[in-house]
């Protein structure tokens, strides 16, 4: 088992003919993911990736033809909200938006709309989801992790890869890794992911990687105290970040006195979470 995606997932790529979309679709396919369709308006009827993946005009027609049940969105930020609305209206159970730089008001509308649907949105501005040995939806490099019993959830991209790499080097594998993204307004929260990991038979321990900005980690700490039975380990980036500056991610900003790493770390520690001082220390804490 795993969460969100596995080898049976039938994946659709919105924006498959863009540079990023095409490159990562190939990677997903090579990883063993069932990439069954792409959507690029105006290119319906063509095939990409050595004739393996058909392109459709719309998400709806792609689903009708291929039975796709998950999508990864690579379309430019300007059009990404529309792509999400299209996926929601087509009823896709899992929508992963890789695109970075979506306007925040677009995202607030999207979230409100998604909430009223039965779809789950992950992201935007996220590396996606990877279930080692089974499938990947997004841009997490496949080679840096192996199947195992650790669930990983993170607001970051490359920092997550560091952790996956360190886990692998320490002989530790991962059930599923979920990048929830670095935006302030996003579809899936730490809590959503923890809830899934808690219910997943394959996952025994969870690593969460937070960062400054907002109070997701604080809220998650409360949730952990009340609902989590599996051990959670954490790392929070940005302890040395200055106030009032947006640290690359749109959501990584300390505003007023909200969003400091210190606050997050102390909340998590209060909830019994072992918090590492640097990414590689997570391995030591897990021994």
């Amino acid at each position, binding site marked *: 088992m795993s969460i969100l995606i596995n080898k049976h997932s039938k994946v659709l790529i919105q924006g498959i003919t863009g540079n*990023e979309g095409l*490159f*990562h679709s190939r990677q997903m396919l090579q990883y063993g993911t069932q990439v069954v369709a792409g959507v690029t308006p105006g290119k319906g009827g063509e095939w990409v990736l050595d004739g393996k993946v058909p392109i459709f005009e719309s998400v709806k027609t792609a689903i009708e033809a291929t039975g796709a049940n998950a999508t990864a969105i690579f379309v430019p*930020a*300007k059009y990404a909200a529309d792509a999400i609305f299209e996926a929601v209206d087509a009823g896709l159970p899992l929508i992963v938006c890789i695109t970075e*730089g*979506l*306007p*925040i*008001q*677009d*995202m*607030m*509308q999207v*979230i*409100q*709309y998604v909430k009223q649907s039965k779809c789950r949105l992950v992201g935007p501005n996220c590396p996606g989801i990877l279930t080692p040995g089974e499938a990947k939806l997004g*841009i*997490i*490099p496949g080679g*840096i992790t192996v199947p195992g019993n650790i669930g990983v959830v*993170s*607001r*970051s*991209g*490359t*920092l*997550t*890869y*560091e952790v996956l*790499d360190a886990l692998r080097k320490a002989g530790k594998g991962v059930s599923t890794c979920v990048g929830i993204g*670095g935006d*302030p*307004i996003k579809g899936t929260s730490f809590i959503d992911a923890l809830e899934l990991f808690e219910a997943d038979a394959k996952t025994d321990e969870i690593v969460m*990687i937070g*960062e*400054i900005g*907002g*109070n997701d980690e604080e*809220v998650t700490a409360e949730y952990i105290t009340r609902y989590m039975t599996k051990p959670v380990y954490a*790392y929070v*980036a*940005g*302890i*040395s*970040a*200055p106030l009032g*500056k*947006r*640290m*690359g*991610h*749109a959501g*990584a900003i300390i505003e*007023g006195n909200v969003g400091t*790493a210190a606050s997050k770390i102390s909340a998590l520690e209060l909830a019994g979470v072992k918090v590492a*001082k*640097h*990414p*590689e220390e997570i391995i030591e804490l897990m021994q």
Partner: protein
Amino acid sequence: MRLHEYQAKQIFAKYGIPIPKGRIAGTSSEVRQISEELGGNVIVKSQVLVGGRGKAGGIRLAKSPEEAEDLATQILGMEIKDIPVRRVLVEEAVSISQEIYLGITTDRINQKPVLIASSEGGMNIEEVAQSAPEKIARCLINPLLGLRDYQLRDIAVSIDLNRIYLKTFMDIARSLWKVFADCDAQLAEVNPLVITSEGRLYCLDAKIILDDNALFRHPDLADLRDTDGEDPGEVTARKYGVTFIKLSGTIGCLVNGAGLAMSTMDLIKLKGGEAANFLDIGGGAYAEKVSAATKLILSDPKVKVILVNVFGGITRCDEVAKGVMDALTGKSANLPLVVRFVGTNANEGYKILEEVPYQTASTLLEAAEMSVNLAKGVVSEHSYQ
């Protein structure tokens, strides 16, 4: 992106929010003229993109055109928090009987816009939230539905607004919501919204912060950007599409990914050093971008060490190496270089850098430690010439 008060007020005025009569001026003689037009009793307000203008003496009342001109001469020569005052807003002075706070921003927790109002206007709302939270009324706005009148009536009751002002207050709040939504604002704030002794409502100070991600929809607003208060490096970085934030340390960092870049800074600090900057070259960066980014680091005279930390995925380490080499080539700087490449084309990357001396690190912690030691003067065997 933050707008100036006068820019925000122009937008508010377009949406029907009442603002005092006034104009923007760049010279003290203009200020005198505007003051004469407005009848002499004016307020002269420096237009710089920082808080604390009042405390710094950047907002002054004048009782005559002569006084206004004098004050303007002073203010236009000032720097406030290192930013030169280039323009002042000259407005008629109004007699204040009550100050209200009214603002719309994004509520991250609830993932919705939130309208905030308080009978304690004129102060920083965060201070009010701490000192007198009961004086603050909030209501969440459904982003698909917009702000509803019934919510405004509730808010008005919560802040004990005299009913004779209700209609005007509601008109202003509705307009503020339109500004927020139409301009893709992250903050649209009227503070204070004053009730004058004649019973009129005015927006006395205005603040709009725009969502940078949405500026593609608002080319006219994007043109309003004033970079006076920004670090020149940050302005350059924006042009190249990399995120650069100037910090006060000595170790220049070049990293791919925001989380990893923060973590790199953190570990430098953990090891007793301090980063000179936050620099995220983004995913899949090409040599040109990396070169520009490296030059940003080199342009900081405080930098003693450069730390390149790249976890290759989409980003190829060789491409990063090319960019770094390009920036270093021909420079006579003598900065030690620590490089950590992991993942896609790491070896190729190391190879490209062989023309310059550098140290390699295998882990993040090691890279940080090495950089800190180098910055402290523990010179290693290689040193960049």
